[in-house]
């Protein structure tokens, strides 16, 4: 819960968090090292100085760190923890659903554990979707179209194998498809982060919600265009939001575009923990105003009402969270770790 300076309580759903192990012991090869190094560079690059972590902690942090940073020191009521396997880079995977389910087990009311699958696994992917539904009752999945898999350096949402998987998701009620469309990290598959496949998939699967993480940046214009056409496409603000600290005016330009094209109902807060922690992000976001000239040019405002939607209300709709019931459940499930 975030309490605003004037005492209002804001329900916060953190749409994008991780519990990863990027430690040297778990790295399979140089790619694993470079991947976590790249994340760490994002962390050091965009965080306020007082929020910086030492490298060792960033590579592998504890479950208690996570509880504290998200829920005790942090304002999150509920965190969606995403699964990213990267088994070509990490021996036990980067953050698998097993690892996420384990951390969630202690405070089940606090977490929504999302799964992941790789359509290139064919029949096995379909079996795995069944497995995740039966074992973890997943409501959503995280898709990483640029993940390596043997000789393949990426895939598209429109691949026939992917369509089979989405058909199954729809049938099983796994309705929220989070897709990483963000900064180029795995470049050779030049289409892997291209956003155009979202357009077709969203049209063909109207029963699914397509949450595009990082709003397709740096392809914001393409993303906005597609999201405007499709009623079931949402934007996740992870990575875009931290710019609020170092480059507030730039963040204003991004959020103004998003509000202009998508409107306030289609944007979701996400910290991308542990790249960033939610507390400073939410505090700065609540205090933020779009610079006047940009707001005027686009005819949009970031009102308290809109901020509340972005911080939590929009996600509660996608994940069917009853806020009053959730508040009661959280109140009866206090934390067992010491808040520092």
């Amino acid at each position, binding site marked *: 819960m975030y309490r605003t300076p004037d005492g209002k309580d804001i329900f916060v759903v953190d749409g994008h968090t991780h519990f990863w192990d990027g430690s040297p012991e778990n790295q399979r090869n140089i790619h694993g090292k470079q991947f976590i190094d790249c994340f760490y560079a994002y962390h050091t690059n965009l965080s306020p100085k007082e929020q910086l972590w030492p490298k060792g902690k960033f590579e592998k942090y504890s479950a208690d760190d996570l509880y504290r940073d998200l829920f005790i020191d942090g304002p999150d009521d509920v965190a969606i923890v995403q699964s990213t396997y990267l088994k070509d880079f990490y021996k036990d995977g980067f953050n698998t659903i097993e690892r996420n389910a384990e951390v969630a087990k202690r405070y089940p009311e606090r977490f929504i554990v999302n799964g992941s699958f790789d359509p290139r696994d064919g029949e096995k992917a379909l079996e795995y979707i069944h497995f995740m539904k039966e074992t973890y009752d997943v409501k959503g999945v995280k898709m990483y179209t640029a993940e390596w898999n043997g000789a393949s350096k990426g895939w598209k949402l429109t691949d026939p194998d992917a369509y089979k998987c989405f058909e199954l998701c729809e049938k099983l009620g796994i309705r929220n498809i989070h897709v990483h469309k963000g900064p180029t*990290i795995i*470049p050779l598959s030049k289409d892997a982060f291209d956003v155009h496949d979202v357009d077709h998939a969203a049209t063909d699967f109207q029963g699914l919600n397509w949450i595009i993480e990082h709003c397709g940046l740096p392809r*914001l214009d393409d993303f906005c265009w597609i999201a405007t056409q499709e009623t079931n496409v949402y934007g996740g603000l992870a990575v875009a939001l931290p710019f609020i600290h170092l480059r507030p005016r730039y963040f204003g330009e991004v959020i103004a575009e998003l509000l202009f094209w998508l409107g306030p109902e289609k944007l979701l807060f996400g910290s991308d923990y542990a790249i960033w922690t939610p507390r400073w992000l939410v505090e700065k976001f609540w205090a933020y105003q779009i610079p006047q000239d940009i707001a005027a040019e686009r005819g949009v405002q970031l009102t308290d009402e809109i901020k509340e939607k972005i911080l939590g209300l929009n996600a509660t709709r996608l994940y069917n969270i009853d806020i009053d019931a959730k508040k009661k459940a959280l109140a009866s499930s206090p934390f067992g770790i010491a808040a520092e």
Partner: protein
Amino acid sequence: MATASVSGSREKELWRRLGEVNDPELDEAITEMGFVERAEVMGDGSVEVDFRLPTYWCSPNFAFLMLDGVRKGLDRLSWAPAYRVKLHDHMFAEEVNRGIEAGRTFGDIFAELAGDKDIAALRETFSMKAFKRRQEAVLRGLREHGLTDREILGMDLAAYDAARFEPGEAAAQKPRYRAALLERFPDRRAGDPVFVTWEGRQIPPAALSAHLAELRGVRVNMEFNGALCRGLKQTRYKELGVVDGEPTLVDFIMDRVPARNAPAV
């Protein structure tokens, strides 16, 4: 002494040539981005250049475009030296280095890695982005200056050249837009308007705001890459112990905010 001054002027010429190579994605000089780690004229006149990108993952096609630019720049050096260009710490460093050394084309180098690659189309895309970004900076600068949209869109090259800006983004981009315009439309006539769309269409005054909104979209994307690239480059070689260098980073990044808006929020 003569040797020293020869090598000094060669060194200068070398850096000038390198400074003409742009990061195609960001439309900024590779020397300004800090991608050239080392450039040296050796005792025998040969040249060595070490090149390092912000991340291990940086797109290899961009890496290729830049290194190809470097190679062409070095080919133009007045003393025609032998040279060695090396890309460091990149996921495809070996492939790129081998290919560049052998003078192979991008398609050759990456055929086995990436399937189809249309590097000419990519170059065209980057030229378009640079054109739009530069144009936006100048257009906004002229509006800031108090010119009406009609006056701005009525400018020809002579009027354009006469315009002066305070130091800042618009001033920096003015000659660069001029270059991009002439490259795009080499056959333009003296009285033709300076501000047209990439496709060469006139912009009616009533449509300037919409046009600027489109250009802004292009810049928002480019700046996202730029901010990350600069920051990543900065942090890549620093571990936490030296991150109190953050003010440098802030300064560095804030430089990219148009001067008139710098402390806006």
